[in-house]
């Protein structure tokens, strides 16, 4: 009963691991393909550019096949993660993706402010004054430390331009 229940609440570890191993194997195949294009033979300067990565790619494929074989042979049906847990993970991965994608357009400071505010309000359920204090405070501290103190320029957007920063 428990086993059946666990099957319905999330993907099995075995299935995900087999998937990850296959992707790694395909990556190995891509490395082999790219290496052949760069040349894997002996040239005027010794081994050509693709020589070393070609064998690396082969090692990836071989080790992936062994790992896939070992994974499929396993008999346990443990969960990789429950759907709810994966949902939690995606609730961070997706906004982080949006945050990263918005950096070139609105700059790091505004994007960070919105991201921190969203995180604290949505996941942490904090009241607005605390959210405002931290989401405004962090970019200001970041600006002072990175741009003023250590002279490391960070991406800026229209708001920073407007403020003349």
């Amino acid at each position, binding site marked *: 009963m428990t086993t059946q229940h666990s099957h319905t609440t999330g993907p099995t*570890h075995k299935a*995900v*691991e087999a998937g*990850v*191993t296959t992707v*790694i194997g395909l*990556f190995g195949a891509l*490395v082999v393909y*790219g*290496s052949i*294009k*760069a*040349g894997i033979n*002996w*040239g005027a*300067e*010794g*081994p050509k*550019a693709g020589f*070393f*990565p070609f064998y*690396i*790619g082969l*090692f*990836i494929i071989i*080790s*992936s096949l*062994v*790992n896939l074989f*070992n994974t499929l042979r396993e008999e346990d049906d443990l969960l*990789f993660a429950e759907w709810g847990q*994966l949902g*939690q*993970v995606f*609730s*961070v*991965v997706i906004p*982080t*993706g949006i*945050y*990263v*994608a918005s*950096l070139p357009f609105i700059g*790091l400071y505004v994007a*960070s402010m919105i*991201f*921190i505010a969203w*995180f*604290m309000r949505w996941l*942490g359920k*904090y009241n607005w004054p605390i959210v405002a204090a*931290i989401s405004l405070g*962090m970019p200001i501290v*970041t600006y002072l430390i*990175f741009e003023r103190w*250590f*002279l*490391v*320029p*960070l991406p800026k957007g229209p708001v920073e331009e407007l403020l003349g920063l």
Partner: protein
Amino acid sequence: MEELVNLFHGFAVALEPFNIAVMILGIVLGVIIGVLPGLGGANGVAILLPLTFSMPPTSAIIMLSCIYWGALFGGAITSILFNIPGEPWSVATTFDGYPMAQQGKAAESLTAAFTSSFVGALFAVIMITLVAPLVAGFALRFGPAEKFAVYFLAFCSFVGLSKEPPFKTIAAMMIGFALAAVGLDSITGQLRLTFGFTEMLNGFDFLIAVIGLFGLGEIFLTMEEGLNFRGGKAKIDLRVVLRTWMSLPQYWMTSLRSCIIGCWMGVTPAGATPASFMSYGIAKRVSKNGKNFGKGEIEGVIAPETAAHAAGTSALLPMLSLGVPGSPTAAVLLGGLLIWGLQPGPMLFVEQKEFVWGLIASMYLGNLVGLIIVLTCVPIFAAILRVPFSIIAPLILVLCAIGAYSVHNSTFDVVMMLVFGVIGYALKKCNYPLAPLVLAIVLGDKAEEAFRQSLLGSQGSLGIFFSNPLVSTIMILGLIALFWSVISNGLARLRTRTATA
């Protein structure tokens, strides 16, 4: 004798006011990193690396190594107070440290942990002071084949000593090699594995990979687990510290054994985590209080902490003298040295004396400063844990993005950081080790260069790797390390058969 003179010069460098300030800042940042879940020594150093770009190289490496010492200290705080190991090498500390805290002996446990950490680090630094120049002098005789043999030994040790399945370690390592190969080939100047993407011309920077794999990957994992911090108070007063210090000398044998285990595991690139486990396991087997291990035995705190610090510190020896890092954090530090145009390896001791001895002197001072700071600031660091994850997590993510962007001022790197974060989450969940992957990204180019130069010298014959006693010995050690699990299983079976016969 010459080493002592050099060391005194080093102390003069390390004791400059700016370097002392940088040391204290580094220790404090390191302890914060060690305490925070999701941030470790390797990615802490990686994230903060851009902060040091405007500093002189000696000050920069002092700050980074102090972040490292601080992270090593910090890992113990959460392990003992909350049963949450901030660092993988602090896992063994939770076995007895947390039960001690539950019995109201948190102060004793923390004092024992910090002091043992200091003893382990001090032992390793003395070892580095005495041995590093010898190792460096010896390494001057190295040609491309010998260099490749050392890399081979390093990578094989990772496979043989890893607790993960060997083929998973190999797969992770090879992914690192493949990523290191992307971009311009340093020997022929030809482009490879870029598939027409101009963003990939420069290849994958190890910093981006480290921040993504460790920093973001850990946060995604933590999100899944839903960490539930239980706040607690940790008071340390002078009487408890002194009482604990009085009791520590009786465990000198455990300390000495742990120091030796730690140094060995640090120099061979096994690292602090296996060192702490091995030291704990041996202490449990050998100690007369072995039955009490796991119930709050102080020896169970001393053993892993001493070994972890000895390993963490001695991991810098092969990095400085051979250019081969003994741990992921040492690999990140090595990357830092390369950024400043310093070439780690035997010539570093000849060409950059001030830098090397300044760093070694800062190891003595940094650890002493670290001990004082952690003993006095425990309640403050513990308070950080009471900051809820929903506040800490976005701040860490923003810091990761800043760190990734600052490497090449490129938003593509921030995208890659996120990709590496997801990859890190998936690989970690599927029991693939990440340290060999990072090590291979850092060392891939150099290992390949040494391999191809060796082959060029021998007209393609692999016999060059067994052409003289030095290279043959290192290669054979590498092969033993690679097949260590098979060899040790065979020996164990043989012993059982002899015993039953």
